[in-house]
């Protein structure tokens, strides 16, 4: 088992890194980052938690089916791409909208961003699915 010290710091890092990963995901279109990078960030911090706290302990209160996560990601990504057909465009035709939100001002909404979220989920789900399966296997 790892030590209290590591556990405490991991616990502190966990939400911060997840936040960071979301930030990387959302920033992706305009800054370095994106679904993959954000997803790996998320996956690594969960992996860190698994490593530091032990898989079984974490599973006792936090046990999502990572298979569903990457399933959702793939679904979201492909549905986003398919959506263009519904608007009588070609598959994967992207759209950019600028909408005005009351508090945040002008916000850029990009269909590709939705796709990137799909990527994010696939990466998280896929990597952690591998982790958990191999980790459970002993």
């Amino acid at each position, binding site marked *: 088992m790892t030590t209290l010290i590591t556990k405490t710091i991991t616990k502190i890092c966990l939400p911060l890194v997840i936040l960071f990963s979301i930030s*990387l995901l959302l920033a*992706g*279109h*305009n*800054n*370095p*980052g*994106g*679904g*993959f*990078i954000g997803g*790996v*960030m998320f*996956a*690594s911090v969960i*992996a860190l938690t698994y*490593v530091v706290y032990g898989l079984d302990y974490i599973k006792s209160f936090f046990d999502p089916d*990572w*298979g569903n996560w*990457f*399933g959702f*990601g*793939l679904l979201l*990504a*492909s549905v986003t*791409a398919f959506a263009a057909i519904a608007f009588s465009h070609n*598959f*994967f035709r*992207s759209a*950019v909208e600028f909408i005005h939100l009351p508090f945040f001002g002008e916000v*850029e909404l*990009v269909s*590709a*961003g939705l*796709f*990137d979220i*799909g*990527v994010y989920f*696939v*990466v998280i*789900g*896929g*990597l952690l*699915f*591998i*982790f958990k*399966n*191999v*980790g*459970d*296997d002993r």
Partner: protein
Amino acid sequence: MDSFTAITLAVFLPFILAGILPAIEKLLKEKIGWYASAVAFMSLLLVAQAAPEIIHGGTIQKSIEWLPSMGINLSFYADGLSIMFGFIVSGIGVIIMSYSNGYMSKKEDLPRYYQQLLFFMGSMLGMVFSANTIQLFIFWELTSITSFMLIGYWRNRPMSVYGATKSLLITAAGGLFMLAGFLVLHAITGTFDIPTILQNESIRDILHSHELFILTLVLIFIGAASKSAQGPFYIWLPNAMEAPTPVSAFLHSATMVKAGIYLIARIHPIFSGTDAWFFLVSGVGIFTMLLAGFLAFRQTDIKGILAYSTISQLAYIMTMYGYTTHHEPGIGVAAATFHLLNHATFKACLFLVAGIVAHETATRDITKMGGLRKEMPITFIVATIGALSMAGIPPLNGFLSKEMFYEASVEMGSLLGSPYNILIPALAVLGGVFTFAYSIKLIDGIFLGKRPSKGLPEHIHDPSMVMLAPAIFLVGLIVLFGLVPSIPVHNFIEPTVSGILLQEAHLHIKLWHGFTAPLFMTIVTFILGILTYTQYSRIAEWQNKFNARFPWISVNYYYDAAVDNAKNVTSKFSNRMQPGPIKTYMLALLLLTITMFAIPAILLASSLLPSDLNFDIPLYEIIIYLFMIIAALGAAMLPRYVPAIISISGLGYLVALLFIYLQAPDLALTQVLVETLSTIIFLLAIVKIPQKFKEHITKATLTKDLLISATVASIVFILLINATQGIVPPFESLSHYFIENSLPLAGGHNIVNVIIVDFRGYDTLGEIAVLCLAALGVYNLIQSRSDDE
């Protein structure tokens, strides 16, 4: 119904009516054999329907569109030759299928039996009426396959399987050679259509003067010889006797084995009149005739005798079709054709007798028989007439064609001059001697002499009329054709001969034609034949010794060696080729890659490296290059896993740093993350692996591997340095478009990301699919074990 339709129906009716057999099997119950006979009879009638037109000197020819883009149609052609074969096939088919009603036990798998017989008959008819080579080949191979199935009718008997395999391998493989021959013929003549070649002298002239003429002939001849069991290919036929006797009678004496003869007759007008034709066809024919005649004489199995005799008799026919010179292209054609018809009658008859005898005595070994003439008088008479016809005794039909054979041999010999004028007739007589001897032996062994005291069933008698009638009918034909030769000659032989010689033919065949050379030869044959028969034991002794001493003289020896050792020899080969450890395979891939790059490098490159090399790089970047190499070397050299993994992880971070210098923050980010993650997965994977294994690299391996690595490195360097010289003007990169349009059209500042999720988002869709696949694959990997336990 016009003649063409009649022929087409004659070919396809058996297929269709046999195809529905499984469906109506329940309906027919035990009448299934009569159903089959009826089908055969229908075909016979249909052939007969077309016959008059041919006999009056015409031909039938028409096509149905089939593979127009290959220039191949479903086309049927009938001339005398085809019609004669059509009669033989369907006629003997009727006889055999009727006979089978008595022969085949009701417990047998009759639907399969008759279905295959009918398929065979249809294929055979299709073959003889085919107007183009490819169609001919198709039906040809179908006869091989049906023959294979029928020889292996008793599928669980090892000898049946052996015989079936042998016949299939030899005949189907021979067929492939024939196909190749047809293809070369096509390349030369530009057509697959046989009548076109037959009717165009200019095409034949082109063929005769073509450099590939001999190749074409040899290839096609291999097909014919393998099918007709000629030359070294004879070996399959004796083993084919594992088939039920009616099958042997039908396929392996009367019809299928004559397919090769048919082919020779069919291509006679195209290839004859050349030395190659004579030496190949007659040479192989004479050789086979003598060898098989001798071997037939030595058999003790009734069907063995008949099998070798068939080979020998086919060789007669082959030899006669081979008789040809430039001026007289068809010396033996008439004789051959007549003998062909006669052989079909007497040999089918003898096979039926063999079936009856085996049926009654429960053995096929003639040394265990004798004196059966009293118990089976009718069978005895039938058999004797058949055998005497085969031996060439007047006034039976065999005598007539034998005479013609001698006549043609003499004529051929004299045309060729010394020493052939003596040699050919002498060899012909020798062949006749063997025939005479084994014919006598057959009758003597079964019916004459004393009944052995034991080994035979007590009550032996003539069989029912169902089995006897077909044989009696054939005997009737034998006698009829012998006494009144004009009936077959006018109706079959003349049209056939004119079809082969491409000119009107009028033949006069009589029983008595004066004291001529052939008559003299016949007498010599009889005398020598009797002499040989009396010396049987001596000859047998000599041959046994000879065989024991020179086992390799037999073709079977090679066949068995090849087939039996095939597995061992090929195993050795494939074990060497596919040694198991993966290194060989990787080396092969690397070497092929190197070779592929080396070919243009050697052939085309004026200089391997371009002249302008660029060394203008910041120092801190150069040092990073160096570090990367060191880290990689570390990963390569460190003996234990974890240090090596740490080293490669270090390499990964350095690569990330380099990506920074190359202005690629996204890449650096990804690299850093992926590196850490793969380190973790590495650790996950090596958890159970002890770090005990250490490869001992020998000096030779080291040298070899270093050499290959260095070569790979060099080609990468050469390729890269050449490729990065820049795009050849005036072209530019697609990237300009991305840079220009990333913001205005895709609304993203990060061009790389926009490419990933938008411009080339489709790639990314694939990429995430790969991630999902890896996850699912790992799941399966882990799962596969849990279930083992």
